[in-house]
């Protein structure tokens, strides 16, 4: 069953015109608006990364000035974290899928959804203004007193940009929470929800509880810098470490904002490519909540050598070990799902396998850093850089790309070229490892972060890393190319190209504006593959 058999037009076709897109209240169109925006910022952030990696080909600082380099790594971080990673899955796939997956016509507050996109755009414009005005060089972490007193770059402008964008995040999270509580279709109980929903619910809790704290922290830096107030200035008795506590109180949970949605996507993909119920569904669901909540209690593991008390460090270290457990539980459950599954080798599987390998390494290397005695050596070295890129890029971006591929037919009504989907996964996986694995070695050797010149003996590993970045960039460019190319072709996607479960696969590709012609009533659990035709099952061939 494909398109053309229903009376209602798809959400892409009606209403027409750019105004209808810019003033839309349709969650699917807003998801597409976000997709375009985050892609643009991903490319900008990638450009900054290219600058960084080019400079690091040689030990001397010979390609850029020190100041320009410092601005590049700052803006790379700011753009990638606030304008790409944090909105990436929630504001694109989350916006698109959450109402559909729960059987609703839209989110609870469609106008606030659109407002969140405009706030994102305004925040982005402020940040771009900071870039064009000469940039910022504080690092995305804005540590005081450098940011509030010493730096002579456009800190205020960039800080305001991030402050504003934070509200986009808050509004998205708040919308998701109310939607998931109040808009589920009849029969859609909490434990029948797809795990994508659980993941986004947990993410939304973090968005809503954490983001306001970084907002006020940024405002305090702004007050010190622009209004002459005294908050962190040690000359007035202020404590620079207070900034770190306030900053990391949000920024650690923020990393869970960046990975939890990816985990939600992977749950969907693993179930679909294995055609099997997710092993330990409720454990996976609860683990999302556990990560969100416990994730608020570990921020001091960024501060073991900051002059934080040893006893506080002990508490943060042990809770860091605890928060690792739910992530491990998820990984084991996904693996067990594939056991006796019916596993396809279509392109989504490549993205799943890529994610698993890279997320494993990224997550496990967190243990090195959470171990206090070892963190002394590793803190602020390339080991940390490698660790978080393995999770943010290897994990979150692979999950994002896997999700974009998987849901591309649903969102656009087009199938993408399968072979290219596999090639790009392989390119990204290979390029990524080549870029970031050498950085673990560099980190243990002692190469600090944010260095634009380094001792000669670090050069070979840096050259390896930069060449990997080239391959990685090629992989990303390939994806943009062939996905955009499909938009010039006919709509050829069936409602359910993967044979997956879920309300989103029961409706046409692309969906009509109101999602469902008839409001659904849910009678079965998620991932009920076993409830299908009894022929050709793994458990006892019939």
């Amino acid at each position: 069953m494909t398109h053309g058999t229903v009376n209602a037009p798809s959400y892409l076709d009606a209403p027409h015109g750019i105004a209808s897109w810019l003033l839309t209240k349709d969650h699917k169109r807003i998801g597409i608006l976000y997709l375009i925006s985050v892609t643009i910022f991903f490319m900008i952030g990638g450009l900054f990364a290219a600058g960084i990696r080019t400079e690091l080909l040689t030990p001397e600082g010979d390609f850029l000035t020190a100041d320009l380099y410092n601005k590049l790594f700052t803006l790379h971080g700011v753009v990638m974290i606030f304008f790409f990673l944090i909105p990436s899955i929630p504001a694109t796939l989350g916006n698109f899928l959450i109402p559909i997956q729960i059987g609703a016509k839209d989110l609870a507050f469609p106008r606030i959804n659109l407002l969140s996109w405009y706030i994102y755009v305004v925040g982005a414009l402020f940040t771009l203004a900071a870039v064009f005005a000469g940039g910022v060089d504080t690092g995305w972490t804005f540590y005081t007193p450098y940011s509030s007193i010493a730096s002579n770059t456009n800190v205020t402008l960039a800080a305001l940009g991030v402050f504003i964008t934070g509200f986009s995040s808050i509004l998205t999270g708040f919308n998701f929470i109310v939607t998931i509580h109040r808009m589920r279709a009849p029969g859609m109980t909490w434990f029948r929800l797809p795990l994508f929903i659980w993941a986004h619910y947990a993410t939304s809790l973090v968005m809503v509880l954490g983001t306001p704290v970084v907002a006020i922290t940024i405002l305090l830096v702004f007050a010190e810098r622009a209004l002459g107030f005294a908050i962190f200035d040690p000359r007035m008795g202020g404590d620079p470490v207070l900034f770190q506590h306030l900053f990391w109180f949000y920024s650690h949970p923020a990393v869970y904002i960046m990975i939890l949605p990816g985990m939600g996507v992977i749950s969907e993909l693993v179930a679909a490519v294995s055609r099997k119920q997710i092993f330990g569904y409720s454990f996976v669901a609860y683990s999302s909540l556990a990560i969100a909540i416990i994730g608020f209690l570990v921020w001091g593991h960024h501060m073991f050598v900051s002059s934080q008390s040893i006893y506080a460090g002990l508490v943060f270290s042990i809770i860091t070990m605890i928060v690792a457990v739910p992530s491990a539980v998820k990984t084991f459950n996904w693996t067990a799902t594939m056991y006796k599954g019916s596993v396809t080798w279509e392109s989504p599987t490549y993205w799943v396998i890529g994610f698993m390998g890279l997320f494993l390494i990224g997550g496990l290397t967190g243990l090195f850093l959470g171990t206090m005695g070892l963190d002394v050596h590793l803190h602020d070295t390339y080991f940390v850089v490698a660790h978080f890129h393995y999770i943010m890029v290897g994990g979150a971006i692979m999950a994002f790309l896997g999700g974009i591929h998987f849901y591309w037919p649903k969102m656009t009504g087009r199938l993408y070229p399968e072979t290219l989907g596999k090639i790009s996964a392989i390119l990204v996986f290979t390029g990524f490892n080549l870029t970031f694995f050498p950085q673990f070695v560099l980190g243990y050797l002692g190469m600090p972060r944010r260095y634009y010149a380094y001792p000669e003996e670090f050069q070979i590993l840096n050259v390896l890393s930069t060449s990997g970045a080239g391959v990685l960039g090629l992989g990303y460019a390939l994806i943009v190319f062939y996905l955009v190319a499909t938009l010039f072709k006919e709509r050829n996607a069936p409602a359910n190209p993967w044979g997956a479960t879920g309300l989103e696969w029961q409706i046409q590709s692309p969906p009509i504006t109101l999602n469902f012609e008839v409001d659904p009533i849910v009678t079965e659990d998620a991932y009920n593959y076993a409830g299908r035709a009894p022929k050709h099952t793994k458990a006892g061939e019939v």
Partner: protein
Amino acid sequence: MSAPNVHSDAHQAHHPKLQHHFHNMAQQLEASILGMWVFLVTEVMFFGGMFMAYLLYRTMYPDAWLAGSNELNEVLGGVNTLVLIVSSLTMALAVRAAQVGARMAQIANLILTIIFGSIFLIVKYFEYAAKFEHHLVPGAHFDPARDPAQQLYFSLYFMLTGIHALHMIVGIVLLFIMLRMAWKHQFNADYFTPMEVTGLYWHFVDIVWIFLFPLLYLIGKHH
């Protein structure tokens, strides 16, 4: 897994204020109320960051905090506290009036709430003016004879009360919007959502002040 679309109450489906993605007015109201509570939680976290800074520095510099607090006029602060509490009463009465469709009561109580909120802001203005005069604004013009840690106190004083005042202004704007809607007979037992959530917001802003007043004005003042 499909069934005919069911409306719980036939005439509710055509209520002019029912947004298309909700099934009925009850769902819409519940969603809005939950939404406002979630938003208020974000506000708690927002102010919370400043409260944490306050807590740390008060522990580190108790004398500076005492000296700073002594510069504040607790009578004016007390008056403002009373004014806000009464305004919460009139707000609650306005919401109640909306729920029963009593238009004049809605309008009167909304106007009273706006008046009380404005009194608060006017008093605040005078307090701030006094700070300027006495060189208590942190920065280049701060009284150099004072312990520098007092700049920390006053920075937090202005941030906390300033951001609170901004929230009050937003609240008053919301109240004017409610006034306009009430004037146009828009609230009754079937639809009073905007009043309900505005009321929640106003009570929250009041509660923040209930914390700010003793923490800022009453340090060391026990009689």
